[in-house]
């Protein structure tokens, strides 16, 4: 699980060009949207594509995304339980 969290942090920083952040700056329970990393709706689309491409998880319900993208910890937990890749 800790490896997956590390991998997610690295991928998110690269995918979303978060040049201001390093892996150490992102705590597992930090909010990804809003006051945390400050991600927005376009980033949410990028993350949905990442889930599909890297872990074989297709999100179809937008409300589901709100729950899953709460934090790195929640996201990693969801991936562990639902991944097909």
């Amino acid at each position, binding site marked *: 699980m800790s490896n997956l969290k590390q991998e997610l942090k690295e991928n998110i920083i690269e*995918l*979303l*060009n*978060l*040049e*201001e952040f390093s892996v150490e700056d992102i705590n597992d329970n930090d909010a990804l949207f809003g006051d945390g990393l*400050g991600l927005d709706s*376009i980033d949410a*689309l*990028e993350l949905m*594509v990442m889930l*599909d*491409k890297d872990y074989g998880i297709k999100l179809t319900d937008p409300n589901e995304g709100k729950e899953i993208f709460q934090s790195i910890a929640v996201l990693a937990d969801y991936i562990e339980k639902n991944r097909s890749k």
Partner: protein
Amino acid sequence: MKACYIHSAVSISAQNTFETVFNLSESKPLTSRKANSNHPPYKTYIAPAALRRMATGVKMGVTTGKKALEKANITMPDAVLTGTGMGCIEDTETFLNTIIANEEAYLTPTSFIQSTHNTVGAQIALGLKCKAYNNTYVHGALSFESALLDAKLLINTDESQSVLVGGVDELGKEFIDYTILVEDQNNGVKVPFSEGASFFVLSSEKQEKAILLNSLKTYSNLTEQEIPKVLNAFLLENNYQTQDIDAVICGNNGSVSDSYYNQARAVFPITTSQLHYKHLFGEFFTASAIGLFLGVSILQNQHIPDALVLGDYSKNSLKTIVLYNQFNGRDHSFILLSI
């Protein structure tokens, strides 16, 4: 018809034209086949949240546009006009390469959204919350001139009081190599290929240090033999003769079509200073916007940098400048500036 004045001119280019006072005394010759711009610290001008999605051309365009407005003391222009030859080629390449790499699946939105040609004009408007007329012209080497013509007409007809207009192009990573290949096989462009953004604020208000944009004329096709006739007619339409012109700035790029510039230069007497700039700034579809930046700066500062002198140089007083640009014998533009 109202007169059209240039109140401010700002440029990011392969030389240090953005932050220093204009003199080009520290200009460096371009040694590689591709020359990137001398980038300022963009974080000073653009919020980090917006900056992270911006490709090079968008950063350059937004920053020069913002500074041009600041220099002209304008907070909200009546129009934002942009010219670009290749648009946001960096993100276009990213998007197309992703389509290939992912076999047309898993396409992400950012590079697609940012790959459109009007991204720079749109980002400037978003930053200003400006809902005024906003247009982007994509006409090869006449892209910037088309935007400039639109801006000039808005001022001339009193439809706008102040217009932000500029030209921007970025090098990109892959497509430029094919361009270079084609040019090299056809005895084409010899100066390096480069990138840059130059923005101007145009207004009908006459101010100290404002430069009059007398006239601008474009042609898609001209023969070499037609250049002297067209150039003389252009000057006569504006009540000038060749001996009235203090300097002519040509877009020589080392290709065989520099012969067009020879025809143009031959029209002027020895008292007209002959200048060029692409050896220092490189070639790209909107390089002529840098030519205009240099013309404006020369008139404002009453100084011709030695690095720009091509042939004869004799004038002390600088009142009137003609710019001539073309690309491979097509897309000709003539611009007349005065103080």
